């Protein structure tokens, strides 16, 4: 396959599907109880140096509890998939967890502004970067989920984003058209937050799935955090609702409000005030250290963090906001 052009970015993961097959061959397919604490799941399955991916869309259905736990346990030298990574990126940057990133969208929190902490870290030169786009990273996960070394796409061509990527341009043998090849991305470990899961890991997501169905299939190890555990009977009652099957899953952690302060569709809206507190605290690095101590390092778990920010009462307000109940709640 003649390569016409190639990006100068480094490919941070191995796209070889046979190497992935060897890994998956050994992965247990037994439908056994995988419930454990988030602390144990992170300790067992997330290692220094691993390449990590996080499900959701930055501050929507994102396993923020798991991000806190990864920072709390002091993981270092990780690779990271910055796929519309917003508040998750902010948290992981605060812990300086990673030293190499595939970038599609980082630092920003969409309409909320940019994270000073993430920006400082990314401008420090401490982090190796390779450029992509949201669809590129989605397509790279899709290639891995398909068990092939790449898929072709028609974006990225002609730009500096391509030049700093690790993609390649080839000519299509059917049409003569130039195509971008997106190399398969098999993360070592990923965390996805879902609405419901059984003890084996069979999981349901409500609303948009973003790139999580491909991510669940692409990743070598998968931790599911779930708003609530449900019975296997309930899973089997309507198998159309399952989008992540148990054999992909290594750990199931019940973490109520696990996406807080992000938005969990059909559960609770994002806590915009608290997200602003993050952005504000980050402006002064010393003050931010205190903020992190309070919100992450001195918290035993996510429940303590929730208590710190209003507990059930606040969660109920965010629930009302999610469901557009009480218009005054929406007006902040």
């Amino acid at each position, binding site marked *: 396959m003649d390569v016409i052009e190639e990006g100068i970015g480094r490919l941070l993961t191995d796209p070889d599907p046979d190497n992935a097959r060897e890994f998956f061959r050994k992965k247990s397919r037994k439908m056994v109880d995988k419930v454990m604490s988030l602390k144990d799941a992170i300790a067992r399955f997330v290692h220094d140096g691993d390449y990590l991916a996080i499900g959701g*869309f*930055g*501050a*929507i259905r994102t396993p923020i509890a798991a991000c806190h736990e990864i920072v709390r346990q002091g993981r270092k030298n990780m690779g990271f998939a*910055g796929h*519309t990574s917003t508040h998750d990126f902010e948290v992981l940057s605060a812990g300086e967890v990673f030293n190499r990133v595939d970038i*599609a*969208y*980082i*630092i*920003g929190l*969409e*309409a909320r502004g*940019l994270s000073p902490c993430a*920006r400082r870290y990314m*401008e*420090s*030169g401490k982090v*190796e*970067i390779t*450029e992509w*786009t*949201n*669809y*590129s990273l*989605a*397509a790279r996960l899709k290639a891995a989920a398909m068990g092939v070394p790449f898929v072709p*796409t*028609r*974006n*990225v*061509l*002609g*730009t*500096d*984003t391509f030049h*700093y990527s690790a993609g390649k*341009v080839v000519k299509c043998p059917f049409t003569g*058209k*130039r*195509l*971008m090849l997106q190399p398969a991305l098999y993360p070592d470990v990923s965390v996805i937050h879902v609405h419901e899961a059984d003890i084996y890991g069979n999981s349901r997501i*409500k*609303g*948009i*799935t*973003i*790139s*999580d*169905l491909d991510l669940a299939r692409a990743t070598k190890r998968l931790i599911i955090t779930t708003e609530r555990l449900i019975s296997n009977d309930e899973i089997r009652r309507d198998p159309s609702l399952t989008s992540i099957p148990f054999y992909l899953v290594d750990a199931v952690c019940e973490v109520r409000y696990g996406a807080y302060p992000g*938005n969990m*569709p*059909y559960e609770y*809206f*994002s806590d*915009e005030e608290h997200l602003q507190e993050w952005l504000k605290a980050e402006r002064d690095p010393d003050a931010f250290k205190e903020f992190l101590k309070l919100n992450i390092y001195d918290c035993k778990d996510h429940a303590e963090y929730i208590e710190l920010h209003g507990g059930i009462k606040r969660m109920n307000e965010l629930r009302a906001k*999610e469901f*557009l109940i009480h218009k005054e709640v*929406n*007006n902040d």
Partner: protein
Amino acid sequence: MTNYNVMEMMITVAARELEDGATVGVGTGAPCAAAMLAQKTGSPNLVIMFEAGGVSPLLPEMPISVGDSRTFYKAVMASGMCDIMETCCRGFVDYTFLGGAQIDMYGNLNSTRIGPDHQRPKVRFPGSGGANDFASFCWRMMVITPQDKRRFVEKVDFITTPGWLEGGDSRAKSGLPLGAGPYKIITNMGVMDFEPETKRMRVVSINPGYSFKDIQDNCGFELLKAPKMAETKPPTDKELSILRNEVDPYRYIIGR
């Protein structure tokens, strides 16, 4: 010019570009407001799509994120990113609105970095997100941005998102889908499109109170003039009323 502000003007101009029955991939902020305004004025059948998966929601309020609950509130489908991006790639999506820290005369956008050292940039921005994808796939890419010399530059520090690349037929030669590209650039001072052959930016419409010279003075490269430059029609009372009372009642986007 007394009864509307700059943001209201830009949103209204953008909304008028969205004909009934078109599809548009939007982000948060002004583009979303423009799409909502279009739906409530001449284009009730405008289909709004969000890159994270929301299709044609009945938006109860402005989304904060292109993936938050509002983007699929009473939507016809809550899908995923590949589905939306591939729908764009198949040619189903007519318009998109994008932005960036810098734009050049061919409509190329930079949202990645300022400074020459990629691994240690002077200023690091978020990167492409879905911008490169939308600009590659959607038929007509539009930009809503303030007219400013630091934004409209001779050469962007980094082409994050493709415009007409180096102009002429360079975009077609790159392998990007044929026939798609930058369409309109909407600023506080006027509206630009692109000369069909060279693909260089040119002024097609000047906002009331501004001159071509004003636009050129606030642009870092030489602008062409369209054969006929019109005066941009300001928002009507009806457009303003809908924008203020129905689209953005809390004035998140249009300001106070």
